[in-house]
């Protein structure tokens, strides 16, 4: 039998099923690497979402900037991050959000040697 998707608590492992599930959402976020698309998105976010065939849940997660839900719905952090950058959010801001900390607390944890597990 082949291996199976690693299961590590507290960790998203982006596999083919997730990729399939998050395909439209990741395509939308990835498109934001182009300046012209960023402008079109900012001008009318809802219309931009409609053009990418998101599921209703994905659409809501993007419009509400529910970052954790984006990942739960198949988002890949490297795609989703392009939307965060548009919002002038850093990876540290997202780290705080994912872990229920303020950005300052999250940065402090990193500066103190990072968070350790197990």
């Amino acid at each position, binding site marked *: 039998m082949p291996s199976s998707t690693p299961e590590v*608590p507290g960790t998203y492992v982006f596999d083919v099923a997730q990729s399939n599930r998050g395909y439209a959402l990741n395509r939308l976020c990835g498109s934001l690497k182009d300046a012209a698309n960023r402008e079109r998105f900012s001008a009318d976010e809802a219309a931009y979402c409609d053009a990418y065939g998101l599921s209703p849940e994905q659409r809501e997660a993007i419009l509400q900037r529910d970052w954790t839900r984006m990942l739960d719905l198949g988002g890949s952090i*490297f795609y989703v991050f392009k939307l965060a950058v548009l919002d002038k959010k850093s990876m540290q801001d997202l*780290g705080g959000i994912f872990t229920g900390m303020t950005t300052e607390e999250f940065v402090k944890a990193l500066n103190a040697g990072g968070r350790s597990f197990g």
Partner: protein
Amino acid sequence: MAELIWGLATSHVPSIGAAMDNGKTEDPYWKPLFDGYAPAREWMAKHTPDVAIIVYNDHANAIELNMTPMFAIGTADAYKVADEGWGSRNVPPVAGAPELSEHILVSLVDEGFDMTVCQELEVDHGLTVPLSVYCPDPGDAWPCAVVPILVNVIQYPQPTAARCLALGEALGRAIRSFPKDLKVAVFGTGGMSHQLAGARAGLINEKFDRMFLETIETDPAALAALSREDYIREAGSEGIELIMWLVMRGALGPGIRRVHETYHVPASNTAAALALFENLPGGAGQPSGASPR
């Protein structure tokens, strides 16, 4: 014949590039990391390759999810620097080495590596930050041509660590059989431990990283025996990038000398490290008994 003169393992964190691009390398946050690079940079400046083979991964820039190569190689004359969504880095475009690329490609495919061929490729921080780690002030042009080799580390199933080491071994054979007098360096990039998303975001595992830094020199086959789950559990969901160091290590011969290393936490959300290995003459054999899986 071409000669493989050194191998560099280095993190490719975007903020390391940004710190250099924005003149922040003397800031208290960044100074320790860049001070740690200095001895390696001095040594490399005296041992300059004609071509750098840079093993890295793309981060949603040149590769989209419609088509995800497992292993890919660039064969172009030149590579544009990607705009990753916050403007392109203000660094020179990357010159290719298409003859060496084709030689390596054919060698690898003949040996049963199923390489995707990129005739056009925009390169992101995964490739340009390691170039900056090697050469902080390139001026108008990088001091070497580049052969990009891409590895899928983002989407499961990634190649196994053992397959990465085997790819490196075949890459070493390919380099050594190139019939021109070229000096070549190999970069293995990414890592060390980090995880960007999920409840474990902010993970750093210094114990694992220190073990990896030591073992990449002494017993790469042991690292090749670790599973994807081992890497993700110990080094984080993005720490699995470390399998790309094994490609570099495989290309070097069994006789290598550690020139320098440095380890620093944090570079934004990541444990950052550099390890530089001189490839010793006569080291044309294989570094391990790893199977090609």
